[in-house]
């Protein structure tokens, strides 16, 4: 349950899972306590000014200078156990003791993802270019497949009613 509350706070649950988690919050005393504790930690971290002004921008600038990552990468799951780990830390050490370390983890994680999204190898999806039939007609004529299949592939050439790519 704690994992799910943590994920809910991070906006990582889909609609259905989020609905279930919220139902649990409405009914269970323990879940509600967890929710409050996590928010308390979150607030404490958010209000603390441990980082100098412009820290995020400077991290982003430094990352932008890094070599480009070309491999497509999924958006990393942002440490689903963050709040759980912090809660454990609160119990074991003290809230103040954690503040010196934790804000960096939280501040850096979202910034680090931004450049990755800009370098996805997946291309932009665009509608079929104007004159697609002309390209197809010109292309079909040079495809070796004609020798095997005759003109059947030309059916692709001439359709004037091609749909937009489906996504």
């Amino acid at each position: 349950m704690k994992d799910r509350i943590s994920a809910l706070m991070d906006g990582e649950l889909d609609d259905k899972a989020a609905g279930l988690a919220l139902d649990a919050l409405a009914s269970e005393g323990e879940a509600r306590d967890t929710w409050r504790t996590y928010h308390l930690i979150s607030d404490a971290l958010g209000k603390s000014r441990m980082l100098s002004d412009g820290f995020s921008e400077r991290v982003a600038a430094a990352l932008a200078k890094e070599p480009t990552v070309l491999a497509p990468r999924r958006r990393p799951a942002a440490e689903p156990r963050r709040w759980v780990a912090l809660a454990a830390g609160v119990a074991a050490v003290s809230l103040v003791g954690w503040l010196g370390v934790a804000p960096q983890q939280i501040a850096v994680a979202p910034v680090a993802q931004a450049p990755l999204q800009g370098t996805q190898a997946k291309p932009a999806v665009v509608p079929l270019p104007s004159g697609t039939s002309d390209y197809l007609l010109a292309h079909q004529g040079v495809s070796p497949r004609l020798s095997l299949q005759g003109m059947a592939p030309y059916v692709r050439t001439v359709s004037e009613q091609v749909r937009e790519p489906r996504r």
Partner: protein
Amino acid sequence: MRAGALSAAAFALATSVAQAQSPEALGWLRKMNQATQRLSYAGTFVYQSAGRTETSRITHYVDASGDIEKLEVMDGVPREIVRTRDTVRCYLPDSRVVKVDRRTERAFPGLLPERIPALARNYDISLGEPRRIAGLDCQGVVLQPKDNLRYGYRLYADRATGMLMSAVTFDANGQDVETFTFTQLNFGNVTRDMVKPRHATREWRIQNTDATPAELGGWRLANELPGFEKVTELKRRLGESRPARQMVYSDGLAAVSVFIEPLDTRRDPVRTGLATMGAIHIYTREVSNHMITVVGEAPAVSVQRIADAVEFRRPQQE
């Protein structure tokens, strides 16, 4: 689980290597090749791709002087294409346009029978399961690609004549991306009249492509795509007489065309990106003040890799 998948892959590899040069399967490809060119036939086939289904009629006439082939699309906007030995004419009755693509033999890189064994460099070719199609007993032949740069094919040939009755293109996940299947086919009894265009085109607009083989100095691929070789270079016109260059790369079965057009003849801004139409991918980008349009019946990654590799190097001045 992972070990299981690995050993399954290893097993598939081992068996495919053993089958890669199945002489019987190669023999069927040769038969399809010959049947397509030598038989007279008339039939109806269904084309399915990306949720689109179209029925077409195809007629092939062969006599001593050569062959003529006619394709009529029965669904939607009426269209008709007639191919003679050196010319393809595409009739669009709604817009009263004929697109004429005349070509020399040198510009037509067909799949020659002697090149069929070379397909085994890029595909594992094996016998597939038998199937009955349009009342005919057919033999399956599977071309399994050796990498993810090309699609796979399941072909079904009539056992009696070798005629290709069904062709299925499948992707790396084994999903069908495109199918052609005859629903009815008759051999013989084709007359010359049956392959004549049905339209009187005296008042129609003619768009001539004027395709001629040409050396395209300066344009090339920085990196060629593994298994794809340049098979021809053409100068041509597209649509309403736009000048264009065309470079064609092929692995022996799949082909990818690179069209190069000077930007100043185009009014539309270039939209960089990928468009998809069933098994066909089209990637557009701008290089050295030219619009590059790459069109191929190949996976998106191949079309994009070729597009990204297009470059212009100014030829050395004397």
